[in-house]
């Protein structure tokens, strides 16, 4: 019972954490410098589990850091640079105050600067790590590159961001790794697959500037500073993997004289290179001419059961991807001046299409509007003054939707002035039993290779299949029915049966025999399933029922939504008719 009394807060969690202010004092940095250091080094605040213990009895909300993290920060060479910079600012201010201009010049020449290379290497030990964190870097750089050059941040930063993003876009074009595009009300979301890593980023629309006041620009600038360095190194490496020049060079300087004339109108010689790059219309020069790409043949393994199926699936997926990469190959696009040029040029080029625009819109136009070989003319006005024969006039959404659908969609629905089908998000994937909007169903049918004329039929087939699955479920349901929902279920069943019967007549007209065979197989399968259910243990049965119930509920909800949609569509149709009549009258 003897011994010294244990003092409070000298062991345990109280000693593992340190408050922000104490950490700041330990590092001898001002708060903005400390914040910057933490962002650059990737040290983030922690929320301790027992705040009162850590806070030495107080419950005041504070920001805590792990003490070990702060000790790690103490070794950082950049901290010294921060201190140097502080001294530099002090000296400069003094020299200004005394009007000693020579001193000012000298000090400015010796301004302390730091590099983040070693931090990048430290935070991302491998290249793949860096790729995984590229989402943030890209979004920030794209955002900063659209900022106006008005004192919100340094002009050099904006220019650097612009340069880096243009380089990255050029890489995506060269490697054809774009996968998805989504035009939202906020900005444009892209997804690319770079070296097997999915990378998602968002770019703002051009000219959509509102500068919110509740954002700390200093913090954002620090993040951008770090991410520009990261993106620069990543770009270098990516260009190397494709044997491209870095800094990027454009291919084929064929007739320089004629081009130079145009360039003079847009940019000075020093800037025209970046401007031409950012036009995204020319391909990049390679270090050495690539040998014709030998087909990368995957190793064939002896097929065995499940593996073979998987393998087959993978192979199909790969083929589809190859097809997707060549989506616009052989097509020639012309962009009217009212469509977003950069986004469309980027997308079309990264799927192998040729693109051009009016000479007065931007630098780097490769052919004029009168070119007869143009296949698609992208227009965003209801009427075209003097259309040229032999090309499709389509709205820009056709490009985006085609990319997401992985096939060239029929152009009829995208003609200028036509009411567009909705632009669906490619980032949403429906699970089995979820509600699938009719537009998406149509799209899926198209992907399966069915002609658009029979869309409705195929849809019906889908629903029929669904209903068959449901009927199975209902049979199982009969064995164990809850009293509370009985009536509702019965009602639903009746309704569904009516629906299926109403449509079955239409579908099963043509190929009766084939259907029978199919059905026999299915019935057998159903029988086997029923038997399996019967032999289940009680507990497993319970679980199975539960799962089935969840599925049914989902289906029910989907049905409800479908009905709602139908009602809405009918209402819209009725209104349209009314309008038409009114117009005629």
């Amino acid at each position, binding site marked *: 019972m003897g011994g010294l009394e244990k003092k409070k807060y000298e062991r345990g969690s109280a000693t593992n954490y340190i408050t922000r202010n104490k950490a700041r004092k330990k590092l001898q940095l001002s708060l903005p410098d400390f914040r910057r250091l933490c962002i650059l080094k990737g040290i983030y605040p922690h929320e301790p589990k027992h705040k009162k213990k850590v806070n030495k009895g107080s419950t005041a909300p504070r920001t805590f850091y792990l003490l070990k993290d702060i000790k790690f920060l103490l070794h*950082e060479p950049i901290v010294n640079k921060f201190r140097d910079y502080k001294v530099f600012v002090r000296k400069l201010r003094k020299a200004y105050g005394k009007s000693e201009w020579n001193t000012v010049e000298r000090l400015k020449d010796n301004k302390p600067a730091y590099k983040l290379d070693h931090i990048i290497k430290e935070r991302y030990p491998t290249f793949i790590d860096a790729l995984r964190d590229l989402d943030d870097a890209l*979004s920030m750089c794209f955002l900063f590159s659209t900022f106006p050059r008005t004192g919100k941040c340094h002009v050099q930063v904006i220019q650097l961001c612009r340069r880096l993003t243009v380089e990255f876009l050029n890489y995506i074009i060269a490697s054809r790794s774009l996968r998805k595009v989504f035009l939202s009300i906020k900005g444009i979301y892209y997804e690319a697959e770079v070296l097997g890593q999915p990378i998602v980023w968002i770019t*703002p629309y051009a000219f959509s500037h509102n500068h919110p006041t509740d954002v700390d620009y200093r913090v954002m600038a620090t993040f951008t500073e770090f991410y520009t360095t990261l993106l620069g190194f990543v770009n270098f490496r990516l260009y190397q993997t494709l044997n491209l020049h870095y800094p990027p060079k454009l291919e084929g300087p064929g007739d320089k004289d004629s081009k130079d004339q145009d360039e003079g109108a847009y940019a000075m010689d020093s800037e025209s290179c970046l401007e031409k790059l950012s036009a995204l219309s020319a391909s990049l020069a390679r270090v050495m001419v690539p040998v014709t790409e030998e087909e990368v043949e995957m190793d064939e393994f002896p097929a065995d059961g499940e593996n073979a199926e998987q393998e087959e699936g993978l192979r199909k997926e790969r083929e589809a991807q190859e097809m997707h990469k060549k989506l616009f190959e052989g097509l020639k696009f012309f962009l009217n001046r009212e469509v*977003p040029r950069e986004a469309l040029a980027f997308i079309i080029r990264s799927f192998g299409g040729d693109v051009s625009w009016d000479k007065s819109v931007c630098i780097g136009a490769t052919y004029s509007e009168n070119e007869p070989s143009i296949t698609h003319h992208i227009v965003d006005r209801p009427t075209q003054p003097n259309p040229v024969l032999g090309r499709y006039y389509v709205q820009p959404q056709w490009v985006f939707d085609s990319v997401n659908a992985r096939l060239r969609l029929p152009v009829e629905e995208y003609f200028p002035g036509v009411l567009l089908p909705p*632009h669906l998000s490619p980032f949403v994937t429906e699970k089995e039993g979820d509600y699938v909007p009719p537009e998406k169903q149509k799209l899926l049918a198209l992907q399966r290779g069915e002609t658009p004329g029979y869309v409705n039929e195929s849809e019906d087939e889908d629903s029929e299949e669904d209903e068959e699955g449901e009927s199975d479920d209902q049979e199982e349901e009969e064995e164990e029915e809850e009293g509370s929902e009985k009536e509702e279920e019965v009602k639903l069943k009746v309704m569904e049966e009516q629906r299926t019967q109403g449509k079955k007549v239409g579908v099963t007209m043509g190929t009766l025999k084939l259907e029978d065979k199919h059905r026999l197989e299915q019935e057998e399968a159903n029988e086997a399933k029923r038997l399996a259910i019967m032999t289940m243990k009680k507990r497993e049965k319970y679980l199975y029922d539960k799962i089935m119930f969840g599925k049914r509920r989902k289906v029910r909800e989907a049905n409800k939504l479908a009905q709602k949609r139908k009602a809405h569509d009918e209402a819209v149709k009725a209104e349209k008719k009314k309008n038409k009549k009114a117009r005629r009258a």
Partner: protein
Amino acid sequence: MKKATWRPARRRQPEVRVWVSGSPPDIRCRKYDLRSFCNMVGGRGPKRDAGDSGFLGFRSGSVDPGTVRRRRRGPRNKKRGWRRLAEEPLGQEVDTFLEDVRLQERATGGLLSETPDENLFFVDKGRGEEDSKIKQDLKKSFWIDRVLESNSKVPSPKNILAHQVPNGKKLKRKQRLWEHLAQQGKQPREVRKAQARLLQPPTPKTPPSDPADRPFYDLWAQDNPLDRPLVGQDTFFLEQTKKKGVKRPRRLQTKPSQAPAVEVIPSGGSYNPSFQAHQALLQEAHEVELQRQKVEEKLSRQLAFPTVDKAPTQESAFKELCEGLLEESDEETPAEPGDGDADGPAPRPPGPEKKTEQQRRREKEARKLKAQQAAERAARKRRQEVFQLRGIRLQVAQRLTELARRRERRRLKRLAEDEKPRRLGRLKYQAPDIDVQLSTELADSLRKLKPEGSILRDRFKSFQRRNMIEPRERARFKRKYKVKLVEKRAFREMQ
């Protein structure tokens, strides 16, 4: 008489103002004698004889000192003499004279006696109709301006230093020397330096802090410029001399949150959304708004001041003060009379009767027997448990599954907790508003699309949500001292 000439030298009555009035009434001709006017104003002027020097004073007491008769010499050793001296101190006349000269120069631009008559006199033709009022109003400047502008006729002296070159002689001599040397082929140092620079332009200094020209290289290659200087050296040496950085702890490789860096907006946020998705997103935004409204309403309800009919009256306030007190007294009052009769403490209730020796023994025996039986029962049960092994195993299994279930639940809870943004500082993370466009705001083509929300704020909130920065609010300007308002007295008196 249109023109009057007047010789001041002959003039002997300076105080008389000459006003020639014989002119026709429509063209009145007035003549002012400035000199006499001035002297008249002074009052003392005419007493003094100006003599024949031709000087005319501009002000009272101005005299030509040359013409003044000699000072009367009074006794200087007498008080009377001192007094006179005090009245007319030495040099006063010179002083007044000079002052008068300056005044004349200032006011008229020269000595009056030397100005020709044409400048002193003019014919007053009266005021025409046209220049009566309007012109005056137009020309008239403010008094305050007139006061401030200089009306001296003496031009301000030129700044001589502005035209002079300091050390001009020296410089001239130097220049001559250099010209002489240049003939011999020698040139000053600056010129030689400039020529040398022209021949050999210095390599332009690259500012180190220019981020746009930062060279990039393959950072992850085997021999990158970053690690090159350290290759092949002793690790111990590198560590001790701090040439090699400290290894980053592994715990820092994990991200503080599992949330994705770029959260894609739900399908309803498409620029041309499908009906269902758009409705779903609208519903979500609507619910958020409802919740916010509810909180607001609750707060306003709680803070509302009661209306007149609900406000407490004097009566109700008194009632509230007496809450509890009165009720107790009500209960007690009927009980009091009963209590009043009893005097002294109530007698203790009779305890249990004392047990006999026999009873104690029997109880003891009974207890003993009971304990024995219980022990036997327990032993028997233990023996029997061998045969219940299956049941026990089942129980154990059940217990284990229960534990596993709980563990799983805990794990899921922790995962869900990880999803939530943490409390990292004084402020809680506030989710941004859902960006949504109403059905009427939706654009029917990409050209007419009006972007919603700000990506900058979106990114900022995302960093906060992923626990990378703590939520903060903008530091507002805070005054150290209270502002004190004082009404100026002049203003107060006016009111």
